[in-house]
């Protein structure tokens, strides 16, 4: 009598992917419960040499690109940049006058900047608001990074604190430090999707709520009668004049009781290389 061979039960192989996914989820859950920042630390330490070498290579490639650009294009670009520089220098003259006036007013109202030792600054320079800041190189920025975050090349080694502000050109604040690792830190931009930031319209001190739309863009929803125009500067609520965004479009439909105001950060995040970190 012959007996038919039973086929091998291969159910373990068939369900192997599900088992692997289950184990993977379990490990991630356990690690996140035990140490929420562990995965971030490991990923950042793996990424650091890539970011440093990548930054070096991209700088060299962009230098090489200059050789292949036509002379005519370079000349035109040079002229246009010269003109922009002259205009900016003229504006800077006016800015320094306004800055002096601002610090004089603050001093008159007893709100001059504090010195590093924490005492009130009564110096003759008008109480200039010196901020203890650290310069950081931007390793990763949008759109390469997801979630509108920046990876900076300073971390616990430079005593960076969570919640410190990311500032460009001493006036524009982009976001705050979200997580600090050994040699890097991650900053979350105010323009991260659906992040709400309390701010004020500089011109008339009206409070508004900026809703992040990603890639340096914001949206504000205000009643139709609110006085807000193209070019208005939006600043963070507080004594310091920290610019967050400028208005570039207003969508107003008469039948709606609210109008949508679109703002964006005044700096090009794609071209960010260095930022300051201040408490």
């Amino acid at each position, binding site marked *: 009598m012959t007996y038919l061979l039973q086929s091998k039960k291969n159910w373990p192989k068939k369900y*192997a*992917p*599900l088992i*692997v*996914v289950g184990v*993977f*989820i379990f490990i*991630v*859950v356990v690690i*996140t419960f035990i140490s*929420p920042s562990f*995965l*971030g630390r*490991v*990923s*950042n330490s793996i*990424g650091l040499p*890539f*970011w440093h070498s*990548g930054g070096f290579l991209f700088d060299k490639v962009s230098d090489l690109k200059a050789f292949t650009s036509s002379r005519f294009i370079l000349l035109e670009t040079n002229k246009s940049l010269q003109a922009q520089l002259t205009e900016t220098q003229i504006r800077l003259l006016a800015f320094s006058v306004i800055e002096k006036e601002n610090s004089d007013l603050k001093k008159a109202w007893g709100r001059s900047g504090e010195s590093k030792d924490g005492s009130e600054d009564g110096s003759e320079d008008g109480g200039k608001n010196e901020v203890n800041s650290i310069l950081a190189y931007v390793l*990763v920025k949008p*759109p*390469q*990074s*997801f*979630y509108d*975050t920046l*990876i900076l090349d300073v971390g616990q080694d430079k005593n960076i604190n969570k919640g410190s502000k990311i500032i460009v050109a001493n006036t524009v604040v982009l976001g705050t430090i*979200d*997580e600090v690792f050994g040699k890097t830190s*991650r900053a*979350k931009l105010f323009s991260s999707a659906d992040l709400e930031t309390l701010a004020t319209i500089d011109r008339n001190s009206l409070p508004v709520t900026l809703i992040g739309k990603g890639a340096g863009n914001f949206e504000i929803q205000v009643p139709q009668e609110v006085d807000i125009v193209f070019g208005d500067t939006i600043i963070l609520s507080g004594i310091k004049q920290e610019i967050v965004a400028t208005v570039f479009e207003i969508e107003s439909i008469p039948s709606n009781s609210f109008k949508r105001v679109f703002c964006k950060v005044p700096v090009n995040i794609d071209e960010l290389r260095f930022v300051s970190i201040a408490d």
Partner: protein
Amino acid sequence: MLFLRIFVDIVILIGIFLFPAWIFIILSLIGVFYFHRYYEILLVGLMVDSLYNSHILFSGFFYTITSILIFLISFEIKKRLKFY
């Protein structure tokens, strides 16, 4: 095939850190449908989330969950495609 898979994995790993997102996303999707049981996509999603997202407990694992779903769905799609 193994060497090709390792090469693609290395390119994706470098891409996570250096290249725009669409490059390694496309490579990962190609890998999940081209290779058999492409578990590496799970690690890609996890790495992106741990690098670039702030986690408040379990919020912020969007790409990890997406990669798990793509991995599981790819089995069903592959069964129905004549190519396989």
